[in-house]
């Protein structure tokens, strides 16, 4: 059942030290900046984060990394031109990295939500990212066995929710939202607005409310990342 709460602080209040958090976003698109700011304020640490990137610039996930709240990150593309906080933590040996090809990351999340125990993927076969993993040849093609990736929490951003938690996203900000929502025990969503029940056409629901536990409306222009915390550009 979906609960609508009124502040980001309330939305993330049950996150504790050591939790695994699936964090939506591809770069800044779909990154739940305000939820991450609130998460920083909880003081939770030793977190495991699953996210496509490891944060960029001086906002959102990058700040969480900067504050050394992330013990371990599972992601596909940590190193970017503006990933200085991750880079520093990594070079200092203060963050553990599990690098996963992007499609395997997505499919492992999908498997977690879909009750699949493991699956054979062709991606990564013969590469160092498959080292030590079980492989199999099926109909002449080579595959690597990969396992689901569950989260204690998912923190994602959508465009709209209705009062029963059905979600719609916006353009490429959809990215990991739907699969993370299904892969976490508790899914927390920030949206631009909460619509009344029936306002979303049942044919156009992207994430059904069954996957959504907590919704907080954080109004702001949908095409920007909102009023989230940022810091001065990196020196």
């Amino acid at each position, binding site marked *: 059942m979906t609960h609508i709460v009124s502040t980001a602080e309330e939305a993330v209040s049950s996150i504790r030290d050591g939790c695994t958090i699936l964090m939506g976003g*591809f*770069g*800044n*698109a*779909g990154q739940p900046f305000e939820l991450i700011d609130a998460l920083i304020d909880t003081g939770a640490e030793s977190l495991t984060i699953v996210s*496509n990137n490891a944060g960029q610039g001086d906002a959102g996930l990058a700040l969480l990394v900067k504050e050394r709240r992330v013990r371990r990150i599972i992601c*596909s*593309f*940590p*190193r*970017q031109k503006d990933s200085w906080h*991750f*880079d520093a933590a*990594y*070079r200092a040996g203060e963050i553990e*990295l599990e*690098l*996963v*090809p*992007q*499609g*395997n*990351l*997505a*499919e492992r*999340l*999908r498997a977690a939500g879909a009750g699949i125990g493991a699956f054979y*993927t*062709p*991606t*990564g*076969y*013969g*590469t*160092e*990212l498959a080292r030590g993993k079980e492989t199999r040849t099926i109909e002449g093609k*080579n595959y690597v066995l990969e396992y689901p990736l569950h989260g204690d929490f998912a923190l994602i951003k959508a465009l709209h929710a209705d009062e029963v938690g059905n979600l719609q*996203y*916006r*353009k*490429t*900000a*959809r*990215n*990991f*939202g*739907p*699969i993370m929502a299904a892969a976490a025990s508790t899914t927390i969503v920030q949206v631009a607005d909460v619509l009344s029940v029936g306002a979303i056409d049942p044919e156009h629901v*992207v994430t059904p409310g069954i996957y959504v536990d907590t919704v907080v409306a954080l109004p702001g222009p*949908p*095409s*920007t*990342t909102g009023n989230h915390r940022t810091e001065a550009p990196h020196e």
Partner: protein
Amino acid sequence: MNKPLTRDELAKKVAADISPGSYVNLGIGQPTKVADYLRPEQNITLHTENGMLGMGPEAQDSQVDEDLINAGKIPVTETPGASYFHHADSFAMMRGGHLDVCVLGAFQVSARGDLANWSTGSPDSIPAVGGAMDLAVGAKAVFVMMSLFAKDGTAKIVPDLTYPVTGLGCVTRIYTDHGVFLLSGSGASSTLILHEAFGLPAEEIAARLDVEVQLDHKLGSSAEAHFQSPVQPV
């Protein structure tokens, strides 16, 4: 043509070799330039792995929308007939063999079509893979765009990769400043054919590679390479 191709000429050549109506993913970097040479009448649909078919050109000024970006996190635009989908659906599309062509940059390609493009293997670099390995395994045709020779003069088409593998036996064509190579067959029985040569005699190109190269019969044994009609678009 007796000059090596410029990057723009190479992009134009790749663009011309893509069949009308194809669904195409252009990798980050040099392959992005191919989009500039796709003609409207080719009716190509571009895929970006962060969840979109029907990607348009880079966004300009007021078009910029940070919810609409490509795999390189550059703001882009939407074309009529576009669609959005989530990451699992997007990579299912790639891995499931639905894209007709994917164009990728590379550090090295082996004569068997093995690709290295995600990591230099440098011990002090921070690794990042993104969708490189997914793109390599999934598309019906995988085109590589790269310079044929590294700065130190060594060829980037090699007997065996010395850079970390992205995908094995996945490359079908290699577009370089000095020539277009076709790969056919697979594994030990694969064949590397030099289809067109630019700026150097075909035989010299072949001689500078440490792998067996067949010369396309149109290249013949002429000492001077010449411009060929394009290969059959795929």
